[in-house]
Protein backbone atom coordinates (compact mmCIF):
# COMPACT_ATOMS: atom_id res chain seq x y z
CA UNK A 1 0.00 0.00 0.00
CA UNK A 2 1.30 3.46 -0.89
CA UNK A 3 1.93 5.75 2.02
CA UNK A 4 1.69 9.53 2.00
CA UNK A 5 3.58 10.87 -0.99
CA UNK A 6 4.97 14.37 -1.31
CA UNK A 7 6.54 16.19 -4.21
CA UNK A 8 9.04 17.51 -4.86
CA UNK A 9 11.51 16.09 -2.34
CA UNK A 10 13.87 19.06 -2.56
CA UNK A 11 13.40 22.58 -3.82
CA UNK A 12 15.55 25.70 -4.01
CA UNK A 13 13.83 29.04 -4.47
CA UNK A 14 14.85 32.69 -4.41
CA UNK A 15 13.45 35.23 -1.96
CA UNK A 16 10.21 36.71 -3.22
CA UNK A 17 9.29 33.73 -5.36
CA UNK A 18 6.25 31.51 -4.98
CA UNK A 19 6.25 27.77 -4.28
CA UNK A 20 3.67 24.97 -4.52
CA UNK A 21 4.10 21.74 -2.61
CA UNK A 22 1.98 18.67 -3.24
CA UNK A 23 0.71 15.81 -1.13
CA UNK A 24 -1.24 12.63 -1.83
CA UNK A 25 -2.77 10.99 1.25
CA UNK A 26 -3.11 7.33 2.01
CA UNK A 27 -6.03 5.82 0.16
CA UNK A 28 -9.18 6.19 2.24
CA UNK A 29 -7.84 9.06 4.33
CA UNK A 30 -9.86 12.22 3.91
CA UNK A 31 -7.91 14.49 6.25
CA UNK A 32 -4.65 16.16 5.21
CA UNK A 33 -2.54 18.35 7.45
CA UNK A 34 0.56 20.40 6.71
CA UNK A 35 3.44 21.05 9.09
CA UNK A 36 6.59 23.13 8.94
CA UNK A 37 9.73 21.87 10.64
CA UNK A 38 12.74 24.14 10.95
CA UNK A 39 16.08 22.68 11.91
CA UNK A 40 16.29 21.60 15.52
CA UNK A 41 12.57 22.05 16.24
CA UNK A 42 9.50 19.86 16.22
CA UNK A 43 6.94 20.19 13.43
CA UNK A 44 4.60 23.18 13.64
CA UNK A 45 1.02 22.89 12.42
CA UNK A 46 0.11 25.02 9.42
CA UNK A 47 -3.23 23.81 8.00
CA UNK A 48 -5.67 20.98 8.13
CA UNK A 49 -8.17 20.14 5.41
CA UNK A 50 -10.99 17.65 5.58
CA UNK A 51 -13.53 17.05 2.84
CA UNK A 52 -12.02 19.95 0.89
CA UNK A 53 -12.68 22.45 3.67
CA UNK A 54 -10.17 24.15 5.93
CA UNK A 55 -10.67 22.76 9.43
CA UNK A 56 -7.75 24.36 11.20
CA UNK A 57 -5.04 26.91 10.76
CA UNK A 58 -1.86 27.46 12.72
CA UNK A 59 -0.09 30.71 13.46
CA UNK A 60 1.28 31.38 9.99
CA UNK A 61 0.99 34.53 7.82
CA UNK A 62 -1.44 34.90 4.94
CA UNK A 63 1.42 34.18 2.54
CA UNK A 64 0.66 30.55 3.33
CA UNK A 65 -2.40 29.00 1.74
CA UNK A 66 -3.60 25.52 0.92
CA UNK A 67 -6.38 23.61 -0.72
CA UNK A 68 -7.68 20.07 -0.99
CA UNK A 69 -8.93 18.50 -4.16
CA UNK A 70 -11.87 16.09 -4.74
CA UNK A 71 -9.44 13.13 -4.69
CA UNK A 72 -8.24 14.38 -1.24
CA UNK A 73 -4.79 15.34 -2.45
CA UNK A 74 -3.59 18.73 -1.30
CA UNK A 75 -1.39 21.64 -2.22
CA UNK A 76 0.43 24.05 0.04
CA UNK A 77 1.29 27.41 -1.49
CA UNK A 78 3.69 29.97 -0.10
CA UNK A 79 3.97 33.42 -1.67
CA UNK A 80 6.70 36.03 -1.36
CA UNK A 81 9.20 33.58 0.07
CA UNK A 82 11.46 34.69 2.89
CA UNK A 83 14.73 33.16 4.01
CA UNK A 84 12.94 32.07 7.18
CA UNK A 85 10.60 29.87 5.16
CA UNK A 86 13.47 27.46 4.61
CA UNK A 87 12.33 24.27 6.31
CA UNK A 88 11.11 20.72 5.88
CA UNK A 89 7.43 20.78 4.97
CA UNK A 90 5.56 17.69 6.07
CA UNK A 91 2.19 16.42 5.00
CA UNK A 92 0.19 14.03 7.15
CA UNK A 93 -2.97 12.12 6.39
CA UNK A 94 -5.39 10.54 8.81
CA UNK A 95 -8.86 9.17 9.19
CA UNK A 96 -11.39 11.64 10.47
CA UNK A 97 -11.63 12.42 14.12
CA UNK A 98 -9.33 12.79 17.04
CA UNK A 99 -7.60 9.85 18.60
CA UNK A 100 -6.36 8.49 15.33
CA UNK A 101 -2.83 8.19 14.09
CA UNK A 102 -1.39 10.69 11.63
CA UNK A 103 0.80 9.22 8.90
CA UNK A 104 3.50 11.45 7.49
CA UNK A 105 5.15 11.71 4.12
CA UNK A 106 8.91 12.07 3.67
CA UNK A 107 8.59 15.82 3.36
CA UNK A 108 9.73 18.52 0.97
CA UNK A 109 12.98 20.24 1.87
CA UNK A 110 12.61 23.89 0.83
CA UNK A 111 15.65 26.12 0.75
CA UNK A 112 15.17 29.84 0.13
CA UNK A 113 18.28 31.73 -0.99
Amino acid at each position, binding site marked *: DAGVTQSPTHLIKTRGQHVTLRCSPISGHKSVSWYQQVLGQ*GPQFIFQYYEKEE*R*GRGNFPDRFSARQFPNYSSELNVNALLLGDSALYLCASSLV*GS*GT*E*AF*FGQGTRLTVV
Partner: protein
Amino acid sequence: SQQGEEDPQALSIQEGENATMNCSYKTSINNLQWYRQNSGRGLVHLILIRSNEREKHSGRLRVTLDTSKKSSSLLITASRAADTASYFCATPRPGTGYSTLTFGKGTMLLVSP
Protein backbone atom coordinates in the same frame (compact mmCIF):
# COMPACT_ATOMS: atom_id res chain seq x y z
CA SER B 1 3.63 27.25 21.03
CA GLN B 2 4.86 23.87 22.14
CA GLN B 3 2.40 21.68 24.00
CA GLY B 4 4.72 18.80 24.72
CA GLU B 5 8.31 19.03 25.86
CA GLU B 6 10.67 16.08 25.67
CA ASP B 7 13.45 15.39 28.11
CA PRO B 8 16.36 14.93 27.71
CA GLN B 9 17.13 16.93 24.59
CA ALA B 10 19.86 14.45 23.68
CA LEU B 11 20.73 10.96 24.84
CA SER B 12 23.78 8.86 23.99
CA ILE B 13 23.91 5.16 24.87
CA GLN B 14 25.58 1.91 23.83
CA GLU B 15 23.88 -0.83 21.88
CA GLY B 16 21.99 -3.19 24.16
CA GLU B 17 21.22 -0.53 26.75
CA ASN B 18 17.73 0.82 27.40
CA ALA B 19 16.75 4.35 26.43
CA THR B 20 14.11 6.34 28.28
CA MET B 21 12.63 9.58 27.02
CA ASN B 22 10.09 11.70 28.82
CA CYS B 23 7.40 14.07 27.63
CA SER B 24 5.42 16.65 29.56
CA TYR B 25 2.36 18.44 28.26
CA LYS B 26 0.17 21.27 29.45
CA THR B 27 -3.51 20.69 28.73
CA SER B 28 -5.90 17.78 29.10
CA ILE B 29 -5.64 15.28 26.29
CA ASN B 30 -7.50 12.22 25.06
CA ASN B 31 -4.42 10.61 23.56
CA LEU B 32 -0.68 11.02 23.12
CA GLN B 33 1.47 9.77 20.27
CA TRP B 34 5.16 9.09 19.82
CA TYR B 35 6.98 9.50 16.53
CA ARG B 36 10.50 8.79 15.26
CA GLN B 37 12.37 10.85 12.69
CA ASN B 38 15.54 9.74 10.97
CA SER B 39 17.95 12.43 9.74
CA GLY B 40 15.35 15.11 9.01
CA ARG B 41 13.11 12.85 6.97
CA GLY B 42 9.45 12.05 7.48
CA LEU B 43 8.04 11.08 10.85
CA VAL B 44 7.22 7.47 11.54
CA HIS B 45 4.34 6.76 13.90
CA LEU B 46 5.42 4.52 16.77
CA ILE B 47 2.55 4.24 19.20
CA LEU B 48 -0.65 5.94 20.36
CA ILE B 49 -1.77 5.74 23.97
CA ARG B 50 -5.23 6.87 25.03
CA SER B 51 -6.00 8.82 28.17
CA ASN B 52 -7.67 5.81 29.79
CA GLU B 53 -4.56 3.68 29.29
CA ARG B 54 -1.59 3.71 31.65
CA GLU B 55 0.85 1.58 29.70
CA LYS B 56 1.19 0.22 26.21
CA HIS B 57 3.71 -2.06 24.54
CA SER B 58 4.79 -2.49 20.95
CA GLY B 59 7.76 -4.75 20.33
CA ARG B 60 10.75 -3.22 22.14
CA LEU B 61 8.77 -0.07 22.93
CA ARG B 62 6.96 0.63 26.17
CA VAL B 63 4.96 3.81 26.64
CA THR B 64 3.44 5.02 29.88
CA LEU B 65 1.00 7.83 30.43
CA ASP B 66 0.29 9.64 33.71
CA THR B 67 -2.57 12.06 33.12
CA SER B 68 -2.41 13.35 36.69
CA LYS B 69 1.16 14.51 36.11
CA LYS B 70 0.58 15.34 32.45
CA SER B 71 3.56 13.25 31.45
CA SER B 72 4.49 10.27 29.31
CA SER B 73 7.59 8.19 28.87
CA LEU B 74 8.95 6.11 26.00
CA LEU B 75 11.24 3.22 26.82
CA ILE B 76 13.22 1.49 24.10
CA THR B 77 14.69 -1.76 25.38
CA ALA B 78 17.86 -3.42 24.07
CA SER B 79 18.68 -0.46 21.82
CA ARG B 80 20.24 -0.95 18.41
CA ALA B 81 22.28 1.40 16.24
CA ALA B 82 19.26 1.58 13.93
CA ASP B 83 17.29 3.24 16.74
CA THR B 84 19.44 6.35 16.31
CA ALA B 85 16.92 9.06 15.50
CA SER B 86 14.96 11.94 16.97
CA TYR B 87 11.88 11.04 18.98
CA PHE B 88 8.88 13.32 19.39
CA CYS B 89 5.79 13.18 21.50
CA ALA B 90 2.66 14.73 20.04
CA THR B 91 -0.69 15.66 21.53
CA PRO B 92 -3.94 16.79 19.88
CA ARG B 93 -4.09 20.52 19.35
CA PRO B 94 -6.32 22.02 22.04
CA GLY B 95 -9.84 22.81 20.97
CA THR B 96 -9.79 20.71 17.83
CA GLY B 97 -11.80 17.62 17.13
CA TYR B 98 -9.59 16.51 14.30
CA SER B 99 -6.27 14.76 14.10
CA THR B 100 -3.92 17.72 14.19
CA LEU B 101 -0.98 17.60 16.51
CA THR B 102 1.29 19.71 18.65
CA PHE B 103 4.85 18.45 18.90
CA GLY B 104 7.65 18.97 21.35
CA LYS B 105 11.21 19.75 20.31
CA GLY B 106 12.20 16.12 20.46
CA THR B 107 14.89 13.95 22.00
CA MET B 108 17.86 13.10 19.82
CA LEU B 109 18.96 9.53 20.55
CA LEU B 110 22.39 8.25 19.52
CA VAL B 111 23.02 4.53 19.89
CA SER B 112 26.66 3.59 19.43
CA PRO B 113 27.74 0.08 18.33
